[in-house]
């Protein structure tokens, strides 16, 4: 069977415009949360978010590095983040220059949960106030979810599978899992896979607030608002950004002497069949996805060293923890589990990809990132290592990443160190 390994990483997050800045800040326990600056949010119930910082910030993102000025003007920010993260991943893998044969064997699968909501909102206003003749000719293709994959393919000449997953907050994890299968099945030798999101706009924030999903009680303390597994958690903090990995067939990577971060060994998928926004109260779907991923990996639950939880800082955290316990054991079999959403917020369609990259970096550096703000762990967390407050050095061989989305869609990925 064709094996699939990770040979390149790219990140745009509220903690940095690249992988190393983000990771350094994450391990240092920094928070990307703050009062919303992107628009005047003073009339919103939620006024905080984890924004990608502008280029003048210490850990800001400079879109000019990899995205043409003209494209920046035409597309929504999630596409800009995605193109940049894909470029970073290709450069990291040493694949930013390829011959024609390899370009035909290289595909892209970078999705998004929602797509170009800010542009849909602003052009709706143009339509309403100034009429159809003023709507931008770039409106449609600047907002479509598959247009990161399209733009990246055009920019780098990649003629392999061109695809985009849309499964709400599971998008990033499904993208990586599905792309790994495309390599396994022989559709491609290299795949760029991941997810991106940017919906910190009035309609996006209001929509999630009205769905009672966002934290609305800690507007005055933004950095304390995302607190997964803490008893005072009260909804998620919206994040934005992108995560993209280069997946590559193992022999192909070895033959060209590529740096290999980890192997994608297990992928599990399920549906809750329960409710559009609430997870199944017993976490049945989550459990099915985790079991499938570990089983496909040919591993035992005890082999998992680190779990990057979905852990959004909502009541659903308890349900996920219950499911993880049923799969790994009451003490998680000695595994550490943290939610990095405590630092970067919830990147929605980007979350699963960004968090998979954190899992991969945990393997690389043998350190697990912390769960911030875990001051008073909720009931049921006793005996579980949730890595409160500070990162910890430990042995990390195999990792499990969970992502769950509206509609009751669940994805789990297992990755492990390649010896």
């Amino acid at each position, binding site marked *: 069977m064709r094996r699939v390994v990770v040979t390149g990483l790219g990140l745009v997050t509220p903690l940095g415009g690249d992988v190393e800045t983000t990771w350094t800040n994450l391990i240092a326990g920094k928070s990307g949360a703050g009062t919303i600056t992107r628009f005047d949010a003073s009339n919103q119930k939620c006024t905080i978010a984890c924004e990608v910082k502008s280029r003048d910030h210490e850990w800001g993102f400079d879109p000019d590095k990899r995205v*043409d*000025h*003209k494209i*920046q*003007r035409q597309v929504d920010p999630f596409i800009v983040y995605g193109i940049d993260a894909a470029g970073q991943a290709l450069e990291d893998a040493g694949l930013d220059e390829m011959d024609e044969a390899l370009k035909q064997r290289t595909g892209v699968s970078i999705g998004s949960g929602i797509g170009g909501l800010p542009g849909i909102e602003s052009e709706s206003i143009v339509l309403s106030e100034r009429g159809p*003749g*003023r709507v*931008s*000719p*770039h409106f449609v293709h600047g907002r479509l979810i598959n247009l990161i994959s399209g733009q990246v393919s055009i920019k780098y000449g990649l003629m392999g599978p061109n695809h985009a997953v849309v499964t709400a907050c599971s998008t990033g994890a499904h993208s990586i899992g599905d792309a790994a299968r495309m390599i396994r099945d022989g559709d491609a030798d290299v795949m760029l896979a991941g997810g991106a999101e940017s919906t910190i706009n009035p309609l996006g924030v209001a929509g999630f607030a009205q769905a009672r999903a966002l934290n609305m009680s800690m507007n005055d303390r933004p950095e304390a608002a995302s607190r997964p597994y803490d008893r005072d958690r009260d909804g998620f903090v919206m994040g934005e950004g992108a995560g993209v990995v280069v997946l590559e067939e193992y022999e192909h990577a070895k033959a060209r002497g590529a740096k290999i971060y980890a192997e994608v060994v297990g992928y599990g998928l399920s549906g809750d069949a329960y409710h559009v926004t609430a997870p199944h109260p017993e976490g049945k779907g989550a459990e099915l996805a985790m079991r499938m991923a570990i089983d496909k990996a040919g591993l035992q639950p005890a082999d998992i060293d680190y779990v990057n939880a979905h852990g959004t800082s909502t009541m659903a955290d308890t349900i996920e923890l219950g499911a993880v316990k049923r799969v790994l054991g009451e003490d998680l079999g000695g595994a550490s589990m943290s939610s990095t959403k405590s630092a970067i917020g919830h990147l929605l369609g980007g979350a699963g990809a960004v968090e998979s990259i954190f899992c991969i970096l945990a393997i690389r550096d043998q350190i697990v990132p912390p769960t911030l703000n875990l001051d008073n762990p909720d009931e049921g967390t006793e005996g579980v290592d949730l890595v409160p407050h500070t990162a910890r050095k430990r042995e990390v061989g195999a990792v499990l990443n969970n992502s769950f989305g509206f509609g009751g869609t669940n994805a789990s990925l297992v990755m492990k160190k390649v010896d």
Partner: protein
Amino acid sequence: MSDTADRVQKIVVEHLGVEADKVTQDASFIDDLGADSLDIVELVMAFEEEFGVEIPDDAAEKITTVGDATKYIEEHKG
């Protein structure tokens, strides 16, 4: 450079992300400045906005260079 030509140049630079010195009156939007047909639609909208002129589709189709745009605007602006 006339005031109109100057403002046209600024809009083209901003929309297409090209160097100002490339935006000569002879420059073709597609052949010299890397625009596609949708970029031209957007530019025409921006010209209409900036100069308060209406550029109908059949006239817009004949605008292929920066000079064509400048000339049309100078002839039609109020």
